[in-house]
Structures are given as structure tokens and as C-alpha cells.
């Protein structure tokens, strides 16, 4: 378990990120693991690999296991191929015919599926498919943020600075600043009694949040139906995002590495909120409609016009179509993006509230190509 509550200054954020990466129960999976698999039902299986299914959003190994007089085929679920490959594993790490031992937790629905906490090759005794997404160590001295010719800090790459993207969020679920609650990386509270502290929810919203938590977040539409990670959630995925400043046309593109590789446009040309999408301003969107302006080195973004078809954070905090976000993006140094969001939603909350976290720069790399696809679990 890890604390999801964030601290805005970067040293604490780095420490939190490191703790997150080292925590043994931390997973970075496409869906909340405990939504599909029961943490109270441990199982160890030994058998022979029959097939390796190396596809997003999760790789699977199928194995034959002798149980009594029968030989049964089990599906072993792993992290996404992106995360596995980032840790040096491949489709050929194990092959059909290899003998393995799997320890993990089994599916809640009683099917022969197991989440592979530990997979050990029988021939060598070596453990395979381990995933760690620890952030790279920060530099001893912060390096300055790259700047445009007019002196303003660049949120992404510039013509003179190497391109990259933002990842390693120091928070993976929304919690009001100053609140100290313990939850896992999927936003599942360690203690449900903390639910009322997470944010200033109206009674119906708190009851719905508790209901979602009670069901171990298994109803999350981002996982069930590949719904986009709208709102602050787009900045809480370890698959990251890219900020592309189109200064000539006065707009910023937000390209997402998670979800379905969606994008969002922040207009900086002084336009109003209405009429931005073909004049269809009554059509609420997953990412809303965004206009912004600069306050020094900070990009301030005002977003409205959200639909209610998605969860705007891991953990299941509700929102309504009255949601309005005021976001502040500040590149503190080359490696650090400070993000702060103020949530105004009189449909679900009793007052406005703020949450903030930091992200790390991944220079010289493209966004991971992660897709929620294949209608797979």
C-alpha cells in the first residue's frame, strides 16, 4: 500500500514516487487488480506453458496444471506488454512447453484465472516478468527548465531542447490537499472509514464513492468499457502525457499515452468556452472544453463542459456535468512539472477543493503506445 496524498514540493514527491515503485503490493495494471482478483484467495500453481498471449492491455500466459486426475488450463494475467518490455521481458521469455510455478490471487468469478504475483521458471529457478516502474534518480542539482526565445519556460520540448513526455506521477488517485489517507495505486482505500475525508462530497456522492470502493473499483468504466481518462485522471497514469505547444496558433495539445491515446486541446487565443467544437457547445465531452492563459511560467487552464460517462479519477470519486476545473501547470525545472487542480462541482461537492502533485520528465522518448483494445479484460 502507498499513500496517495501528494506533497507539492518536489523532494517529497520524489520520495513518494520511489516508495510507490518499491511497495510490494503496488501494481500498475490496466484495471484495479483487486476488482477482478480476490486478494484473500492465494494460490500456487505448477504446470506447463501452453500459449503466450502478448497483447494489450494485459499479457496472458496459459498453462496446463495437473489437479487430481485432471489437467486443467489456467490463464495467468500479467502487466501490459509495454510495462513488461520496459523491464526487459518479451514474448519469448517463456515458451510453450516451459515448466513454471505461479503464485498469485485467483479471479473472484470462480474462473481459472490467476494474477501472477510471482512466476518462476522451473528449469533455472529464476523469477520472470517482474515489473518495477521506479522513477530514475533525480539529479543532484536541479537543471533549469528549457525556455523559449521570449524567456518563458517550455512545458514540453522546444526546437533546441530534446523532446519527451511527463510520467511518474506522484499521485495516482485524487485526494484533497492536506488530507492524509492510505490507498493503493488504484485508489482503493485501506480503510473505508476514510472515505468522507478524501474530498468534500455531498451525501449522495459519498454514498456512491463508498459503494464503488466496496466493490473494489471493479465497475470503473475506463477498464470495463475503455472510457477515456478525462479530467485530472489523464495526469495520473504512468503511461504519461505529452504537452505540445503550438505557439503560432496559440494552443497547447495534450497527447495521452494511456486510455486510447486521446488528445485534448487547450486554446490560448482568448476565445470563450462556447462554440469550440463545430458550434456544438451543448455536447458535453470526456475532456471538456479548455481555454487558458499564462501567469508568468504557469499555464492556467479553465475547463468546463464535461459529460458524466466516465470516472475523473481512479478510486471512483463522482462528478457531474457541472464540473469545472482550474488547472495550473508549472515546469519547476527540467525534470519536474507541478500540477494543481481546483475542482468546482456543486452537483457533487459541498465546496471547491484542490489537489496537487508532480510529474517527472522522460526525455528523448516517445509516449508508450498503450491502447485499451481487443475488448479484453
Amino acid at each position, binding site marked *: 500500500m502507498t499513500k496517495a496524498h501528494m506533497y507539492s514540493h518536489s523532494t517529497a514527491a520524489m520520495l513518494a514516487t520511489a516508495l510507490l515503485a518499491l511497495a510490494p503490493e503496488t501494481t500498475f495494471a490496466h484495471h484495479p487488480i483487486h476488482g477482478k482478483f480476490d486478494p484473500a484467495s492465494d494460490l500456487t500453481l505448477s504446470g506447463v506453458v501452453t500459449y503466450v498471449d502478448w497483447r494489450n492491455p494485459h499479457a496472458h500466459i496459459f498453462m496446463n496444471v495437473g489437479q487430481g486426475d485432471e489437467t486443467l488450463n489456467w490463464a495467468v494475467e500479467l502487466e501490459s506488454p509495454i510495462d513488461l518490455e520496459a523491464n526487459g521481458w518479451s514474448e519469448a521469455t517463456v515458451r510453450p512447453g516451459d515448466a513454471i510455478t505461479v503464485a498469485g490471487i485467483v479471479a473472484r468469478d470462480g474462473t481459472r484465472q490467476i494474477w501472477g504475483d510471482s512466476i518462476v521458471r522451473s528449469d533455472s529457478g529464476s523469477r520472470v516478468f517482474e515489473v518495477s516502474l521506479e522513477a530514475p534518480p533525480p539529479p543532484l542539482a536541479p537543471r533549469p527548465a528549457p525556455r523559449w526565445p521570449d524567456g518563458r519556460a517550455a512545458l514540453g520540448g522546444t526546437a533546441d531542447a530534446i523532446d519527451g513526455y511527463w510520467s511518474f506521477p506522484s499521485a495516482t488517485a485524487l485526494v484533497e490537499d492536506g488530507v492524509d489517507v492510505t490507498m493503493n495505486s488504484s485508489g482503493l482505500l485501506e480503510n473505508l472509514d476514510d472515505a468522507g475525508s478524501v474530498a468534500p462530497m455531498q451525501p449522495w456522492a459519498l*454514498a456512491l464513492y463508498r*459503494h464503488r470502493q466496496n466493490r473494489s473499483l471493479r465497475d470503473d468504466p475506463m477498464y470495463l*468499457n475503455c472510457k477515456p481518462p478525462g479530467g485530472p485522471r489523464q495526469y495520473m497514469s504512468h503511461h504519461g502525457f505529452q504537452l505540445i505547444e503550438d505557439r503560432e496558433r496559440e494552443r497547447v495539445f495534450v497527447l495521452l499515452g494511456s486510455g486510447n491515446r486521446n488528445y485534448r486541446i487547450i486554446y490560448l487565443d482568448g476565445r470563450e468556452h462556447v462554440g469550440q467544437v463545430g458550434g456544438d457547445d451543448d455536447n458535453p465531452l470526456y475532456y471538456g472544453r479548455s481555454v487558458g492563459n499564462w501567469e508568468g511560467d504557469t499555464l492556467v487552464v479553465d475547463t468546463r463542459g464535461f459529460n458524466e460517462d466516465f470516472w475523473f479519477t481512479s478510486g471512483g470519486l463522482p462528478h457531474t456535468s457541472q464540473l469545472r476545473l482550474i488547472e495550473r501547470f508549472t515546469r519547476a525545472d527540467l525534470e519536474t512539472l507541478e500540477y494543481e487542480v481546483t475542482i468546482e462541482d456543486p452537483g457533487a461537492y459541498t465546496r471547491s477543493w484542490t489537489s496537487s502533485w508532480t510529474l517527472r520528465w522522460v526525455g528523448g522518448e516517445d509516449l508508450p503506445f498503450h491502447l485499451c483494445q481487443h475488448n479484453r479484460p
Partner: protein
Amino acid sequence: MRISTWSLGCALLVLGAVGAASAQEGHPLKGSWIGTWESNETHGEFVLVVLDWDGERVSGIINPGTDNIEIAEATLDPAEWAVRIEADAEDRDGNAVHYMIEGTIEDLELPNRFITGTWQHDGGSGAFEIRRQ
């Protein structure tokens, strides 16, 4: 006006063309609901309900386009997900009819969650069930 089988059929056809219930992760009552109020001789057995939430109160209409019964008061008790709807209408002779509907939300987490309970007015009562579209 009693909602006719023909108009209900048209409504179901339109909703069917739209497909399965669209996701609705906000206030659980918001949306369009279709179902039955059994043994209702005043307004027929089939019922359409449209509900909305503005942050403070639930509003809505019953049988829009035919009976156009404005909901006078609707409440949701999230402790039990209990729903209570009151509405004033007229029967075919122009007499006032006050509806009281009480039920609970089931399958809360699903887009096509449903409300099950009872309806009643001075001239009748019965089972009530509507499912979100």
C-alpha cells in the same frame, strides 16, 4: 392522457435505435427511465420518467409528450438508495390525482440500473418498476 401502446412502442423503438443504456456515472437518478406502474387504470401500465439533478434537487417529468406530469418533489436517500417521487396529475375526467411513488435503486453500479417499489394515488396502487435507458 393515457399513454398509448402505439406511443410507447415508438418510444421504445427510438430508444432501441440508440442502443444500450449510455453510461451515467454522476447522480444515480439522472436520466431517462422506462417501465411499468402495474394496474394503473388512470394513466396506463407503461410509464416513462425523465429525471435531472441540479446539485440541490431532483426534478423531472412523467410521460413526457403525452401526460406531461411534472414531478412536484423527488428525493433520494443515499443511505438506502431509497427514492420517493410525488406528482400531481389529472385523470380523464379532469379530477386531481396525486401520485406517490416509493422504491429503491437496484444495480446501482450499472448504466441500466432500475428502481423498484410501489405507486399509489387515491384511486389505486400497484407495483412500480422503471429501468434507466
